[in-house]
């Protein structure tokens, strides 16, 4: 009986998570377009619903009813597989993400995470690494030069930025003495990691920008030179899959930054409910992503590689060494 209840709870949480993640791009696209409009002295969508609030719904209906075109030269199997491959990893990662400790609903204590893995961080990085397959397959299967170039760029970029990203969190793991995201947040109850690990945060955030394919590192889909990059040939619902996965990754990177460096649901000064604190911080970083997008130009490809290998990688390594030495010094009697 208890097992069934526990399983039902997990199933419910997973369903809720999937629903939230699938629906979140709707308000996010609206917000992105509104913020873009305001920054460019425009108004953004205004005509569908109050201040264009229903615009994403209209766009969704449009994408659903549009022709789903597969190019004649495309590899049909891979072409159909790629959007699903791109969509799955960001969703899977959220299984390991805690959103808070517990809430009591109807007297029962319910944990705000699906699972508390002791190697959650490793799991996150492993699964996020799979994201690159969707992009490669998508670009390759379409049999179009823009798509191939876009996916080649993406591969190189994702792989080179995953390394500094992985190194940047090692400092956090050393501080918390654990790879469990829950433990990492608990370790930040007094002081947030960003105080001890400013360099780690910087490297992680920049690499996160690159992982999420956002400006200034959005070379994979540079409209100016590649059409739309790896999803040039996609239309209709498959295109929507890529879009949803992109927003899910933006969200994921924001959530990870908050959990790893900004104390998760630990608040400061103002006593708000922990979940609210968490959401506020995540919202701030999502806003930061959008803000960056409409402020900065795009890096050139060689600059992108130079930043990844010559700046971020040495910085993250130095960060590990310095953290280790400092921890050793503190621990020494």
């Amino acid at each position, binding site marked *: 009986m208890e097992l069934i209840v526990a399983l039902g709870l997990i199933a419910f949480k997973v369903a809720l998570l999937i629903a939230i993640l699938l629906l979140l791009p709707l308000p996010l696209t609206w917000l992105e377009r509104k913020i873009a*409009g*305001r*920054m*460019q*002295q*425009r*108004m953004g969508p*205004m005509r569908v619903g109050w201040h264009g609030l229903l615009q994403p719904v209209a766009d969704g209906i449009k994408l659903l009813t549009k022709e789903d075109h597969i190019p004649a030269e495309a590899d049909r199997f891979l072409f159909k597989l790629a959007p699903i491959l791109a969509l799955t990893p960001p969703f899977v990662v959220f299984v390991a993400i805690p959103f808070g400790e517990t809430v009591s609903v109807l007297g029962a204590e319910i944990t705000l995470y699906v699972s508390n893995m002791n190697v959650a961080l490793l799991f996150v990085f492993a699964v996020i690494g799979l994201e690159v397959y969707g992009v490669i397959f998508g670009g390759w299967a379409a049999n179009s030069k823009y798509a191939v170039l876009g996916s080649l760029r993406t591969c190189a970029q994702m792989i080179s930025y995953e390394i500094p990203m992985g190194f940047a969190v090692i400092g956090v793991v050393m501080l918390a003495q654990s790879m469990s995201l829950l433990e990492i947040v608990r370790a930040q109850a007094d002081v947030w990691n960003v105080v001890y690990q400013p360099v780690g945060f910087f490297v992680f955030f920049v690499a996160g920008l690159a992982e999420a394919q956002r400006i200034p590192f959005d070379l994979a889909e540079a409209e100016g030179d590649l059409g739309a990059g790896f999803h040039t040939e996609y239309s209709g619902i498959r295109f929507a899959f890529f879009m949803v996965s992109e927003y899910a990754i933006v969200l994921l990177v924001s959530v990870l930054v908050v959990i790893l460096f900004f104390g998760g649901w630990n608040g400061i000064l103002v006593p708000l409910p922990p979940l609210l604190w968490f959401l506020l911080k995540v919202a701030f970083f999502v806003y930061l992503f959008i*803000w960056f997008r409409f*402020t900065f130009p795009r890096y050139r490809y060689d600059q992108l590689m130079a930043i990844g290998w010559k700046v971020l990688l040495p910085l993250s390594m130095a960060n590990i060494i310095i953290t280790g030495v400092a921890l050793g010094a503190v621990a020494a009697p």
Partner: protein
Amino acid sequence: MSLARDRVGTWIGWAFFADLASALALTFGYMFSRSVTMQYPDKEKWLPYPRYRGHHFLTRDDEGEIKCVACELCARICPCDCIEVIPYEDDKGSRHPAKFEIDMARCLFCGLCEDACPADAIALGQQYEFSSFSSRDLVVGRDDLLGKPGKARTGGGVVAARLNTEQDVLVETSERRGYNWWRNIRRT
């Protein structure tokens, strides 16, 4: 010395992303500046300047007689060949157009007809909303041209308007003088 100090300053600026920060501050400031969007046709509408060349109109003299003397100069000068005038002579012996048609689908709104007219009979007015689903509707006859609005007197502003789709699609407004649209533009 100062060159070296400048260089050091530049490097310090780079290290702390001074340029990126100032860019972010700029876009953030813009986020709270006024929008320049003119909400046409839902809420606002542009009143053209008096010099604007819109839909043609024909004028009448003080006795209410049509001013045009059917000299066909406008038809001659028109680069698009879109005016057709057929004259007749009335009881008093003066010439007037029996037929005066402008094909708005071909007109390029150069205003040469207005310049050529010896009787100040034809001019280009302020109306600009006459799109249509059929190019046949764009051939406008004499009596329609007599009823078209004349030149704008004020103009050069944005007025509150309302989109009316009940019968035809109309953008209605009752204001005569709007606000100056340029005042909302932020230039820094």
